[in-house]
């Protein structure tokens, strides 16, 4: 199950999209999502599709890979579409069966919803496919940096995220070991009723939790020993610096926003 979730996985191809500053990609993704929720006609989505298709093409990430990211949420898409399809009121009824009816407005709304969700997922997964989690974290820290003035612990959140990313593979490996150890003691992960299954899961989670706490304690000590004292006065080995291609990308994003919203809303 965990293997199906491809959002958040990095797919290196060395394309120019991969080399962009993470802040550009964050802003681009954010604005793209806003744009697709403002359109009132299908022409807007045509513009979005061309734009998204071009970005995917340049990134070199195979389409098959990107569509795999949609799989886990197909149910959600179908469900939202169905609700819009059957429960939108209107006079332009196309089909009626007792209380259920499909109106033209409903059909349009459902289609919009499906397109929006598909674009939302593919749009954001192209960001995570082309950006390493650490660069993304840095981008988030830097983009939200001004919030520090409001005493929001941006640096701490970013650090927490990057530490979590560092320890996920270690804890996964450990979970694997615990599962093997418990199976060798006769724990059965396939059979039994729901309560048995829960108790088996607990028998994995508790040792995992204990070990995670131990690691956290060690890590805090090791960070202290290496002079960590908060974000104040910290420098960076790899600070984010904009280059020409980043400025050009901002311009492209701007042009896309203006043209797509103009076409999607006012034509």
């Amino acid at each position: 199950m965990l293997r199906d979730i491809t959002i958040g996985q990095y797919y290196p191809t060395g394309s120019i999209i991969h080399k962009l500053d993470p802040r550009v990609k964050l802003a681009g993704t954010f604005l793209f999502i806003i744009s697709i929720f403002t359109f009132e006609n299908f022409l807007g989505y045509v513009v979005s599709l061309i734009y998204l298709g071009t970005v995917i093409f340049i990134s070199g990430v195979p389409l098959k890979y990107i569509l795999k990211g949609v799989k886990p949420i197909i149910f959600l898409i179908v469900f939202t579409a169905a609700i819009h399809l059957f429960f939108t009121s209107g006079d332009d009824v196309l089909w009626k069966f007792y209380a259920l009816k499909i109106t033209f407005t409903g059909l349009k709304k459902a289609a919009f919803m499906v397109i929006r969700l598909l674009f939302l997922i593919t749009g954001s997964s192209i960001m995570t496919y082309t950006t390493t989690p650490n660069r993304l974290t840095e981008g988030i820290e830097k983009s939200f940096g001004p919030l520090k003035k409001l005493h929001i612990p941006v640096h701490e959140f970013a650090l927490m995220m990057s530490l979590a990313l560092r320890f996920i593979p270690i804890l996964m490996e450990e979970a694997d070991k615990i599962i093997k150890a418990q199976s060798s003691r006769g724990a059965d992960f396939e059979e039994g009723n729901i309560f048995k299954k829960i108790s088996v899961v607990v028998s994995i989670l508790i040792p995992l939790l204990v070990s995670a706490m131990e690691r956290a304690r060690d890590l805090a000590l090791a960070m202290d020993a290496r002079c960590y004292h908060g974000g104040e006065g910290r420098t960076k080995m790899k600070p984010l610096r904009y280059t020409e291609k980043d400025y050009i990308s901002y311009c492209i994003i701007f042009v896309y926003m203006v043209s797509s919203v103009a076409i999607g809303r006012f034509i």
Partner: protein
Amino acid sequence: MIKSENLVYEYKRNISDNKEDRIRVLDGLNIDIEDGQFISIVGHNGSGKSTLARHLNALLMPTGGTLWVNGMDTSDENNTLSIRQNTGMVFQNPDNQIVASVVEEDVAFALENIGVPTDDIWRRVEKSLATVGMIKYREDAPNHLSGGQKQRIAIAGILAMKPRCIVLDESTAMLDPGGRKEVIDAVRELNSKEHINIILITHYMEETIYSDRIFVMNRGRIVMDGPPEHIFSDISMLKKYNLEAPQAVYIADRLRKEGFVINKPVLSMDDLVSVFADYKIGVGNVDRGKKS
């Protein structure tokens, strides 16, 4: 330079609701370590070795007495950051002390914390990685490295701060023999070439034989202090503190009891081999004496 006067560390333990008990972990330690020395600290479990180590870079502060690191009083909080730059610490579990997902970024962590400019960070990271022989792996994920390599990364991370002392608190305990050798070789080289003070806490006596001095700790006190030849010449005393000498020492001891005359101190298997070699070519260091 590290110096302490009557260093005491106590913690409180609740026995019952309103009764407290004070447990003494360090009981009036007096140590004096000169720059550039290689010190080993041994002692059985719970003798206070880790507690002492944590005092050396101000992760813990004394509850009594004073400890000076490089002339700075560790109980003064204004000194804490300089002390931690001066004295680095390598811990036991290699995984739990690596903070970044890329080797070179982990080595840079301490430098980022103390605010070193970016260009300098790159230079110092490269130099430290080269010193511990890990430059090839600079862009790798630490997860794929061996335990010994991870510990060398941790050493590089400290080295980048240009410290005068490195404390290793059982840093070889979780490694295989190959990894242990990697780490010990790395710190021995740092000690001999860069004159960095090494304080090695370990349960493996074989690792201590290269040190200038060995401290034996027992119940929060230093009970023996001297060069390895001296410490390991008194097996019965070591036994009293639940410690064992390296294997070679016992073999040499048995041989002496069997009547072999071995004139030079034997600490390692290499020493033994050279004793036998001398014996074979009859240099005269070893004589088969007559038991009367």
